[in-house]
Structures are given as C-alpha cells and as structure tokens.
C-alpha cells in the first residue's frame, strides 16, 4: 500500500557525512534527544507533542526473521506504529483521561539514549538526520518481570521556522523510524513511545 514505506533498516551512512561531535548541530541534536527522553520517562506527553511538527510521521515497522538474502527484514505493509499528528494526539489525549488503565499506575520508564550520530543534508541547514540507539526499561507493579525494548532510531529534525519551540536549537521532530530489535516484543503493549 502506497503510504507505507517498506521500513527497511536505515541505510548505512558514510562516516564522512557524519557531523563532528563538536559541531553545534550535533550538540543541539544530541541535547534534543536527551531532553526528549526525559519527557518520555516522566510521561510529559503534552510537552512532547509540542516538539513534533504537524506533518510528523512516526513509524515503527514490524521486524521479521528472514534469510540473509531475502532483501527485507520487516513485515510488508505492517507496523506497530504508523502515526501522524492526529493519531499521536489521540494517544496522548487518552493518557490524559482517567481511564487509561494500562498506565495507571504508571510504568517506571527509563529511555537510555546513545550512539547518536548527526548527518547534515546537502540542500538545507534547517534539517538534520539523527541516528540513535534507545533502550527502554519498563517496570510495572511489584510482581511482573520488567521489560526491555531495544531499538535503533532514524530521525529527521527540522528547525522551527518561527524559532519559538523551546527545544535545543529550536529543533522539532518531523519523522522518526524506529527499528526495533525483536520480532516478538516482550512487553505487554506499546502504551509508551520510543
């Protein structure tokens, strides 16, 4: 179906195009991701939503086990998340009701973010592509085993044209592709964001 990308793992980028770790854009992008992780850990989703562009695409394909030569490693036409601003806003609104039982009591969440690399684009200074790894630790109650979700992310950050968003460098998230590292998720649901 046309609107769905096959969701292949991000294409390997050449080291040469990766911004130096001292580059301001990289420092801002890194800070954006760490600040964002704090919002996601504390489930401050209204603030998180304010950092997303209105044309956000938030995609988490379903990974599948395939032969090395198969040429694909995601389930064709299926994703865990395949979201736009409206659907994300409904998810956030739902957590704000008093009846989102799955997160009441809330999970204890820790988004560990690392392996951050920032790539400049040739045609614009107001967008960068940022790769990162995220490891989410999620603990609920006192009986269940905690769950871990490991994923790679490829983000497109775009600078707020009005320079009003109070994020590092006024960056906003315009696109995120989450490449989860398991074919069968070991968590009861994805009532969280990565």
């Amino acid at each position, binding site marked *: *179906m*046309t*609107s*769905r990308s096959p969701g292949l793992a991000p294409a390997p980028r050449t080291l040469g195009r990766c911004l130096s770790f001292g580059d301001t854009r990289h420092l801002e992008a890194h800070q954006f991701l760490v600040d964002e992780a704090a919002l996601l850990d504390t489930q401050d989703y209204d603030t998180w939503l304010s950092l997303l562009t209105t044309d956000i695409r938030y995609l*988490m394909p*379903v990974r*599948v*086990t*395939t*032969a090395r030569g*198969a040429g694909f490693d995601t*389930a*064709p*036409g*299926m*994703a*865990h*998340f*395949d*979201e736009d*601003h*409206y*659907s994300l*806003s*409904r*998810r956030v*609104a*739902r957590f704000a*009701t008093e*009846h*989102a*039982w*799955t997160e009441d009591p809330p999970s204890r969440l820790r988004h560990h973010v690392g392996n951050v690399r920032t790539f400049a684009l040739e045609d614009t200074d107001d967008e960068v592509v940022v790769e990162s790894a995220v490891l989410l630790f999620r603990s609920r109650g006192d*009986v*269940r*085993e905690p769950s871990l979700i490991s994923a790679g992310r490829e983000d497109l950050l775009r600078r707020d044209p009005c320079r009003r968003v109070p994020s590092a460098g006024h960056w906003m998230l315009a696109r995120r592709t989450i490449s989860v590292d398991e*074919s*069968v*998720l*070991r*968590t*009861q*649901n*994805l*009532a969280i964001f990565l």
Partner: protein
Amino acid sequence: MSDHGAVLEDVRRGMVPAHIYNDEELYALEKERVFGRSWIFVAHESEVPHPGDYVVRRVVDDSFIISRDESGVVRAMFNMCLHRGMQVCRAEVGNASHFRCPYHGWSYKNDGRLVGLPFHGEAYGGEEGFRKKGQTLLPAPSLDVYNGLIFVSLDPQAPPLREYLGDFAFYLDLYTHQSPEGIELVGPQRWRVKANWKIGAENFAGDSYHTPHTDSSVVEIGLFREPKASKRKEGALYWAGSGGGTTYKLPPGTLDERLRYVGYPDEMIARMRTTWSDAQLRMVGDDGFMVSAASVFPNLSLVHNWPKVEDTESDDVVPFISLRQWQPVSADETEVLSWFAVDRNAPQRFKELSYKAYLMCFGSTGMFEQDDVENWVSITSTAAGSMARRLRLNNRMGLLADDKPVSPPLAHFSGPGVAYVGFGEYNQRAMLRAWADCLETPVAPPEPVDLGGTS
C-alpha cells in the same frame, strides 16, 4: 495428574475455579487434549500468494512451514529434518524452492519431498539402506481451508473444517467474505503477554460487558462513538457451532444506510449485497446487528470496529477487521499474533484508512487492546496462588439461580445458533464448556512414523 473432574463440573455450572488461568497441570492437559485435536488457525492463503512463498507458524510447541508449492498447493509441514531433527527453515517468512537443513545438508522441495541427501550411496548404501524416494517432511496430520483461512489439526481423524466450524461459518463470512475474492491478511504483529491464553479468547467471544468500562477512554477522546453502556447492551450475543461473538445494534435504517453508518463505501456495499446470503443481509439490514468481536474455539479471535481516523469536523468513521491468535507459550504466557484483514477488492484509499483504524484500536499499539491486556496480565498472576484455588469466579451472568436465562433468547434473529440481547456470559460459558469437553476426553496416541531403512 490430579483428577480434574470437579473443576470441569464447576466450569459447566458457570463457576470458574480461578486457578484454571494459571495451572501447570491443566496447561499440560490443554496441550494434549485441546491443541492436540482442535482445528488451529495458522495462516491465510494471501500470506503465501506465489509458488515458493512460505510462513512459519506454530501450534503451541510444534513449528510448521506453511508453504505454497510449485503447483500452487498450500502445505503445512512439520519443520523438523527427518535425519537429526534440526529445523529446516529458520526464517519466519520468505520464498524458497527448497529448504536445506543446515546440519548435514539434507534438502527438501517446497512441497516437502526429500530430494537431497549428501553421500546417499556412500553413507547409506543408496536406496537399499535409506529409502529416499517418497520421503517427505512430516505433513500436518490434517489441513483444511475456509475462505482462504488455513487451519491445521494434529488429529489425523479431525472432522472437515467446515463441519468443525458449523454455523459459526455464517458469521465468519461477514468478516472474511465481503466479496467473492475474500480478504487479504497483513501482518502479524507479534508480542508476548504474561496472561493465560483462555482469557483473551473468552473476552472476544462475548464480553461486551467490559467495553463501557475498560475501554471508556477511547470514547472520551472522540475516537469511538459506540461502547457507551446503553449502546453496548443493545447488541446481540450469539453462539453457533464452534464460535460465538458480540454485535452492535445499528441505528434504524436500510441495509445500505446501516452499512454506510459503519463506514463502508457504496462499492463495497454493492459487493456485500451480491456475496452474502439473504439471511446474512437480513441480520445486518433488517435486524440491525453488525458483528464486532468473536472467537472460534480454541484460540482464534476476530474483531470489527469503526473508529474515527482523521482529524476532521465530520463524524466519518472507517471500519477495520483484525484476526488474532492467542498462541499459548506456557500456563501464564501467551504470544499474541494480530493481523489486519481487509477485503481484497476494497478501494486502495479505504485499505489505507482501515489499516490506520486497526493500528489505533487493536494490535500491539491499539488503544482498546492496551487496557484489556493490563486486566488479563493481572488476572493471570493473581490466579497462581493458593487463594485462587478456593475462589470460584462467577461466570453466570445472564442466568438465574435455577439456570433459566434472565431474558429469553431472541425470537427474531436472522443468524443461526442462539442469540441474546443484553449483557450475559453465555459465550464465555460456551467456550469453557467446549474446553471442558476436550479436557475430559483423551486423544488417541499418535501413530509414530518410521523413516527410511526398516521394512
């Protein structure tokens, strides 16, 4: 193994010993007597459309390759090399002309035939030592297809699938046969929940009582207009053959108006009109009941709902269909496989919006599903202890003390089976009765298969 007669007796009178949702002994018995004989859904033909396409699916602990061979025949083959027992296919989806065992290189055509056996002459003395000719990967004891849905049974004497489904096929058509070409199935999303497999199957079969409460958040956020208690209890609950489900009562109107209310475009409605039987059309058009959640015993469920998926002023909704399997992992853990289903002839735009509707409501990220699973995980862990062995849960909603129904079955209902309007645990009881019938009936010991040499 203890005598479970008392448990089955309790279940049959609608009192459920809570430990059945987390009990190692009962789980061992379920593997043998429920999953060892029932028809188990494994895949849909649209998942393996071309020769060589395959998916690998399990029936509890048994791995099967579901493959379409070069002549177009769909097969289910036990994924174990005939030689030393290695899995011959370790991917879960792909296309292959052959499966080659990584251990010693035995290879099999995608119809299961053993075609490659290294050093057959030197090591075995050729056909005289190991008869290669005619050997195949072990086929599933029974395989049958309905509306493209592929089921296997571990019982070689299983009745034909259509007979097993019985009158539930009438309802299954409403999900999977909206046009002559039927559905295409996309997915599945797979995830593990620490919940017993029966809880989800029972919930989908008949628990309309939970929607106004558990799923109230999706109404509050404007996603869904239906599950208000008043709406939900006007729906009919039906049980027919091997399955049962819930329905919504649609607002008054003609067949077309009612299907439009659910969000179907006119060209799909036109195909339903020529595909469905008169009785199927009457159930929607005259009776005003539209299928929602359902389960086929033991572990296949379906769901059909119609949320709002776009940020517009209008109240336009888009229907979606999902199939899911509650694949047991252990007494207290289930792998959920959840697929998106859509009529193959639906307009492309409809398919895209319907997929979006599915993702918002059900599956690993679905907003309905999230709160449901929270309940089921909690039930399962609480059912593990000794207090749960003292408590019999009341599963008698809809029955008076003398077993008479609170209200009589629907007199005018166009579908087969028995239907009631209002809340009631009729279908949960029917699921558990089928479960009890299986558990008390031993299965015939399987016939071992000898390979190759001995004559």
